[in-house]
C-alpha cells in the first residue's frame, strides 16, 4: 500500500491490518512522495485518476503482488465527475482516495470512525477488483458497488461467502 499524502500512521496501520485480515496476506505500507501537480486538472480542480493509476508502479522499487495507492486528493477520470477509487479488473494496480469519504463535505459532522471504516471498505473493494472480483448483489458484501459515500456505510467490510470462495479459487494467488 502506497500512502500518497500525509496520513496518520495509526490510520494507515488500521487500514493495512484490515486488508491483511480480509485477504490473509502481508501488507507493506510505503510512503510515496509523488509530486501530484502534473496530474492536477485546473478546470476540474481534481486529479487525473487514470494517469495516477499508471504512475503507481514507478513509485516503488520493490516487487509486490498487488499495489494500491491511497490518496487524499479529489480524483476523477475523464468520463466520470469523480471516483472514490479504481482498479483494473484482474490486474495488479488500484488507487483510492479518502477525499470524498469525509462526512464534512456533505454538511455532516466530522467523524473519524466513519472515515476509517469507509476507507477500509474502499481499499478492500478496489483490491477485490484486482483479484478479479466483480460487483456483488449481496447487501452486506464489501464488493457491492457504492456510488455515494453513505452507501458505503450500508455494506460490511468483508467479502460475502460467495465472493470469498471466488477469491480463494483465484489461480494467480501465490
Amino acid at each position, binding site marked *: 500500500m502506497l500512502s500518497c499524502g500525509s496520513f496518520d500512521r495509526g490510520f494507515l496501520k488500521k487500514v493495512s491490518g484490515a486488508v491483511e*485480515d480480509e485477504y490473509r496476506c502481508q501488507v507493506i505500507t510505503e510512503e510515496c512522495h509523488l509530486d501530484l501537480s502534473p496530474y492536477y486538472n485546473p478546470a476540474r480542480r481534481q486529479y487525473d485518476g487514470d494517469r495516477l493509476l499508471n504512475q503507481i508502479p514507478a513509485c516503488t522499487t520493490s516487487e509486490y503482488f498487488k499495489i494500491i495507492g491511497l490518496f487524499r486528493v479529489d480524483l476523477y477520470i475523464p468520463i466520470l465527475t469523480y471516483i472514490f477509487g479504481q482498479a483494473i*479488473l484482474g490486474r495488479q494496480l488500484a488507487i483510492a482516495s479518502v477525499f470524498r469519504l469525509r462526512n464534512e*463535505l456533505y454538511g455532516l459532522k466530522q467523524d473519524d470512525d466513519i472515515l476509517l471504516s469507509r476507507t477500509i471498505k474502499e481499499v478492500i473493494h478496489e483490491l477485490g477488483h484486482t483479484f478479479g472480483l466483480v460487483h456483488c448483489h449481496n447487501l452486506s458484501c464489501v464488493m457491492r458497488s457504492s456510488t455515494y459515500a453513505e452507501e458505503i456505510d450500508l455494506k460490511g467490510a468483508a467479502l460475502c461467502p460467495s465472493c470469498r470462495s471466488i477469491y480463494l479459487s483465484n489461480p494467480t494467488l501465490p
Partner: protein
Amino acid sequence: MADKISILIVDDEDSVRDSLLNWFLEDGYEVEAAENAKKALQLLEERNFNIILADIKMPGMDGLELHRRIRSLNRETIVIIMTAFASVETAVQALKDGAFDYVTKPFDPDDLSHLIRNAASQIALRNENEALKERVTTLEEVDDIIGHSEAIVRVLQHIESVAQSNASVIITGESGTGKELVARAIHANSSRKYFPMISVHCGALTESLLESELFGHEKGAFTGATFNRKGRFEMADGGTIFLDEIATISPKMQIELLRVLETKSFVRVGGNREITSDFRVICATNRDLAAMVRNGTFREDLYYRLNVVNIDIPPLRERTDDIPLLVNHFIRKYCTSMSRDLITIEPSALKHLEKFEFPGNVRELENMIERAIVIGNGREIKLKDLPLGAETPENSVESLDELEKRHIEQILLKYNWNISRSARALSVDRVTLYNKIKKYDLRQKE
C-alpha cells in the same frame, strides 16, 4: 438474474471506451466496445446487445443515425445516447426518436449506475415469463424469527402474504417485540431484496434534521456542504424505507410525508429539482395510531395511506410457549459469538422465565440470557444468574455495558492486544472493536 446483460459502447475516444469497459466489467456485465458506428453495426450483425451506449458526436456516422439504424434492425435493444453538454438539444431529439435516455459527459457515477440499473430492470421485466411469475416461493431469511406460538405463526403467514406486493405495512407491537426483524423479513422476501432497506428512526431526529435526513440536501444548502447528499427516500430507490417510531413525527412532517407517498417525488433541501424514487414503505410503532387519529394528533389521510396492511406482534407474555425456543436460540447465539461451548439452562430457571412479565419483551429476554452467559458458571444458567426478582435489569449492579467492557478487556489481555485475533475471537470486525475500545476508553497496560 439468469443471463448476463450485454452492453456495447460506441465512442471514438479511447479513454471513454477504456473507462466504461472497465466500469461495466467490474459491474458484472458482458461488454464490448466499438470506435465508430460502422464497427458497431458490423458487431450487431453477428450478435445482439441488450444495451447500447452511443456517443452522439462521432466522425462518420453520428449517434443519432446509428440509433435509427439500430431501431430498424432490432427493437429490443435499449439505446442510451452519450452527449457533451453543448449537444443536449440533439440528445433530446434522440429521445423523441425513441432512445431510452441520454447522459451528459462527464457522467456522475451515481447517475450512470442508476441509468444502467433502470435499463437492466426493464430488460429483466421483459424476460420475466409467466412460469417465473408463478413459481412457488418459500420464505427466506425468516429463520431468525423464532417461535411456534399461534401468534408468531400468524405473523409469518402475514409476512408471506404481503411480501411480494408493494403495499404499505404498519407493524405494531410493544417495544422489543421484533418489529424491525419483521420489517427485514418482508423486505428480504420481496422482489426488492437486491436493493437496500433504509431505516429511519423518526423519534431520534429533530424536525429540521428529519427533513434533510429524508429528502437530502443540495450542495451549499448548509455551510460546509460541498457536495449533494442523498436523503433516505432517495437511498431507498428500488428498495424499502423503514420508518421506525412513525407516531413521533410532527404535524408538518406528516403533511410532507403524505405528499411524498402520493407523488413518490420530492425536492432536496436547498434545491428545486424534482427527484423521483421507487420505494416501498414499512412503518413501525408501539403506540395506538388509531387512537391518535381519533384525538387528532395523527393525520387520518396519512394513517390510511400507511395502514394498508397491519401486522401486530403480541407481547411476549401473551405467547409464553415461545420462551423456551427463544432461550435456546439466544444461548446458541451468544455462546457462539463469545466462542464458548454451548451451555444449558436449569429447569427451575426456565420455569421462572416462562412466568415473567417481560415489559421489554424479546429484547429484554435476549439481554438477560446474554448477561447470564457472561456471569454464569459456564455450564448451566441458574436462577440466580437471572434478574427476575423485584429488581429490573436497569437497577441491577452490573449493566450490560459494564459486562461487555470487561469481556472485551479480558479477550484483549488474552491475545496480548492483538486486535485482529481479539476481533476474531469476539466475532466482530476490527472497526467495531476499535469503536468499542474507544467507547470504553480501554488501554493496554504497560
